[in-house]
């Protein structure tokens, strides 16, 4: 029996109708395309009236297939599938043609746009006729969640889930949770101390019955799918028996080896070879750094072991591997600070008194290397003048084109702290001031009143080459003051570079491990930039905080909470539907060559020894089609993307490509559809 197809061309206000002749295209479809029973154009197909139109036609006109030519299926495929289902039609018999993203938004010529719309609708109609009824599989959701990264975003996400009564594994790479926020001194714009507001949350994590904290651990591998992932965790050897350690810190006190702490102290301070990054570290257990430990270097010392009152030091400890079963994953892996030495004209690494923002945070922090005193690199001298350079590595084509979002406010905070603690003169060199959020502009205003100087212009260089009187022995910041149109030189004692926030050095590997993607800049990509900022294209994997893009503490906390709310929704529902658009293997055709097994990016294909054939795990398969294309025996079929459907779609799109070659008629060309009908080459050029 011939199918009855309904074609619905959406105006999308003027988004599509402004470029494509929607009425004409709909009429053309009805007149020219085989199987089309109804063709309409409508102002907004996604409105409830638009959906009702489809439902009504299915019921009254007996439609068996639906093609909606509107926006991208990313946006409204679910809407129209639901409309079909409401009218009793299998939702997978509905197909969307992207007229907005692929035609009207990218085409200016109205005639060409309408012609392209026709071709695409023709393709959609040809393929939808061959659609099969599919049923999604329902799988249970494991109520346990894995949170990766114990910065403020990860802490917030973990606490919200745990407080709602759901178990959480919180995995942190460093010896303690707290992230970058634990390194900071004060937080803008209220200037409350970072530790004072962060450490209570850290203790909550530590004592929470629903949170299993795994610090100094990393996720090695993730398998499974939404609702039931398995994550392999490497718990790095601390060389401390956690069960015996009381966290008294005697081992740290007795350790004779001091090294520069490149991580927590940002290279500005020292730590022991056995260490706890900061006094309020959670968990309290120290970590032994084998790269610097005298015992691991030379085989003697063992001072920590000698003095440990509970015998908790274990030099023989090895890395442990744990497999965790979880239903959802929240990634909150944070950011790295831009390497300021990459802009050599600012002198970082060459000129002693040029500091990065992170170094300065540590310097200001009362628990930091200078106990909160703002001093030059000699550790003694207080600066009398300080320059703050914004956008170091940000808004710079050579490094990161984006704005790092937090530096303007950090600079204002630094300005306040410097003036408060030293009375030094502070000058900020900015391109644009961007104090965007609540109470930020007021803070900017406050600093202007406190007497901080603002020079609008990107600093050209920082040099110690004195030229003018008063410059001897100083660092000179040269910049164009764009408000007066002059080059100016500012001799100062100290320069602070507000380095860009950049993706973690291993962000790309992390993305691959969790099956999500990165933007060009390297930040994790959200499902929708505006409407779905914490979900990813991979079901069950969510992102929060700066791993998604530069943001400040309030925004990171909001995202942590948002991600946890999304996960709670999944857990409460209890089950999740898995898309049936997946691949399957025809056992009769499979020769058992196993080519597909290793190609599958989701490890969804197993080889069945007994039968001598490969088999696809429906729950793991994402329907990417790699195996379908690779199978030499054409034994694998992708649902919704089988050969017949793809060939039909191609025929549809080429309906008017060349006349007289079999594709000329907009009617179907027949054939079994499984194999492309290759037309005979035209002997005569088309006239």
């Amino acid at each position: 029996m011939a199918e009855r197809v309904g074609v619905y061309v959406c105006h999308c206000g003027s988004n599509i109708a402004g470029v494509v002749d929607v009425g004409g295209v709909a009429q053309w479809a009805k007149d020219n395309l085989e199987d089309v029973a109804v063709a309409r154009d409508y102002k907004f197909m996604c409105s409830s009236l638009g959906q009702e139109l489809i439902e009504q036609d299915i019921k009254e006109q007996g439609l068996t297939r639906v093609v909606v030519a509107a926006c991208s299926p990313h946006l409204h495929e679910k809407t129209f599938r639901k409309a079909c289902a409401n009218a009793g039609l299998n939702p997978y018999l509905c197909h969307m043609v992207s007229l907005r993203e692929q035609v009207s938004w990218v085409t200016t010529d109205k005639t060409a746009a309408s012609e392209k719309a026709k071709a695409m609708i023709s393709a959609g109609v040809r393929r939808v006729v061959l659609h099969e009824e599919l049923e999604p599989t329902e799988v249970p959701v494991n109520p346990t969640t894995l949170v990766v990264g114990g910065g403020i975003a990860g802490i917030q996400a973990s606490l919200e889930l745990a407080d709602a009564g759901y178990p959480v594994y919180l995995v942190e790479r460093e010896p303690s949770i707290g992230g970058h926020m634990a390194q900071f001194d004060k937080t803008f714009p209220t200037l409350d101390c970072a530790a004072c507001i962060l450490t209570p949350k850290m203790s909550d994590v530590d004592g929470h019955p629903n949170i299993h904290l795994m610090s100094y651990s990393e996720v090695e591998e993730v398998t499974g799918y939404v609702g039931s992932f398995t994550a392999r965790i490497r718990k790095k050897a601390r060389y401390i028996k956690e069960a015996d350690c009381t966290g008294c810190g005697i081992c740290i006190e007795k350790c004779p080896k001091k090294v520069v702490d490149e991580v927590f102290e940002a290279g500005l301070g020292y730590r022991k070879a056995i260490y706890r990054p900061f006094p309020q570290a959670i968990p309290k257990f120290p970590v032994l750094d084998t790269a610097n430990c005298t015992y691991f270097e030379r085989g003697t010392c063992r001072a920590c072991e000698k003095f440990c009152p509970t015998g908790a030091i274990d030099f023989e400890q090895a890395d442990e591997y744990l497999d965790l079963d979880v239903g959802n994953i929240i990634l909150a892996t944070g950011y790295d600070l831009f390497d300021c030495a990459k802009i050599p004209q600012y002198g970082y690494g060459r000129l002693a008194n040029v500091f990065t923002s992170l170094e300065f945070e540590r310097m200001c922090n009362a628990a930091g290397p200078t106990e909160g005193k703002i001093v030059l690199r000699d550790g003694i001298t207080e600066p009398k003048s300080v320059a703050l350079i914004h956008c170091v590595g940000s808004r710079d084509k050579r490094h990161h084109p984006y704005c790092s979002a937090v530096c303007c406010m950090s600079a204002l905070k630094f300005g306040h702290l410097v003036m408060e603690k030293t009375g030094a003169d502070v000058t900020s060199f900015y391109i644009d001031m961007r104090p965007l959020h609540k109470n930020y502009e007021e803070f900017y205003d406050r600093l202007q009143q406190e007497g901080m100087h603002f020079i609008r212009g990107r600093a050209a260089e920082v040099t110690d080459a004195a030229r003018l009187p008063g410059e001897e022995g100083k660092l000179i910041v040269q910049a164009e003051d764009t408000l007066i149109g002059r080059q100016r030189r500012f001799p100062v004692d100290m320069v602070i570079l507000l380095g860009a926030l950049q993706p973690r050095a291993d962000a790309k590997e992390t993305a691959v491990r969790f099956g999500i993607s990165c933007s060009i800049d390297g930040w994790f990509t959200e499902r929708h930039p505006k409407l779905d900022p914490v979900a990813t294209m991979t079901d069950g994997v969510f992102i929060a905080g700066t791993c998604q893009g530069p943001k400040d503490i309030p925004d990171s906390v909001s995202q942590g909470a948002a991600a946890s709310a999304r996960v709670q929704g999944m857990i409460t529902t209890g089950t999740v539907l898995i898309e049936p658009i997946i691949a399957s293997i025809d056992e009769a055709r499979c020769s058992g060559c196993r080519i597909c097994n290793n190609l599958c990016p989701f490890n969804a294909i197993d080889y069945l020894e007994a039968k001598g054939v490969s088999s696809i795990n429906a729950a793991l398969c994402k329907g990417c089609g790699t195996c379908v294309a690779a199978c030499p025996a054409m034994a694998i079929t992708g649902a919704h993307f089988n050969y017949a459907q793809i060939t039909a779609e191609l025929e549809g799109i080429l309906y008017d490509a060349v006349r007289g070659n079999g594709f000329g008629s907009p009617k179907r060309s027949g054939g079994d559809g499984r194999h492309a009908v290759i037309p005979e080459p035209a002997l005569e050029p088309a006239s």
Partner: protein
Amino acid sequence: MRYAYYPGCSLTHSAAPYDLSTRAIAGPLGLALEEIEDWNCCGATEYISINKAAAYALVGRNLALAAQQGVSQDVVAPCSACYLNLRKVDHYMGKYPDLRDQTNQSLAAGGLHYDPGSLRIRHLLNVVVEDVGLEAIKSKVTRPLDGLRVAPYYGCLIARPQLNGGSIDPEYPTHLDHLLKNLGAEVVDFPLKTHCCGGHMTQISADTAYELIRRLLHNAAEYEADLIVTACPMCQLNLDAYQSQVNRHFGTGYHLPVLYFTQMIGLALGMEPAALGIGREVVSAAPALKKIGKVAPETPAAPRRRKRDDKALPMPRQREEA
């Protein structure tokens, strides 16, 4: 490696030692430099701003000759001004078809023609560092320049503007730094490494030029450099020949010899100073060169330990240099 060699006028007179040393090291470094036959002046720094059509024809003629003689696709210029002019003409002829046609019309009078983009214009410093390679040079060093503190001076013409993707960092170049380090010399930080030497301002407004020269000498002296190493004949001339006038003008007493990087390579390869044109500079390099090999014997002290009361903060860790 074969190159079409464009010495430029400076190297035939004031910068003859640059030419001499370049030819001296070419063989040992495996560079076959074949001079472009019948080349002419590039117009130096001013002409291109005064009479564009004539200046483009003047430079274009050299490019056309190099292309016609077909020695190599790579044209190498040791003089920074020549390098910039050749590069500029090649670049803008490619960018503006009118300019290309106009220039080629002029060249046609001499039976010549140039297709922009058909040659690669390289500075000698680029060729030495990128084509020969630092490792290869290091392996040929027989007399390391130990004990010599040198200020690497690039001048303003090599690094900018970055036409057709120049490979030298315009903000803080390091080609010369790495080269000199590999020759064994101690390279001092020289913040003014890309600042202007005054160019022909010595002829127009001597006071302005003297101040620009003084800044450079002062900065190099401040970092206790024994000598300044440059890659540009103009820079060498200004800093060397005008040094005594600058001293007189400001009442200073700088004595900073200025040598070409090619002379330093020659020295490190064990060649005789005279064969490299050393001794022809105004401010004698002899006292400085006596320091070669005389390294203050380092006391094999125990690894420095931080004193208990040392409050100094650690310097940022330097990443491994390329």
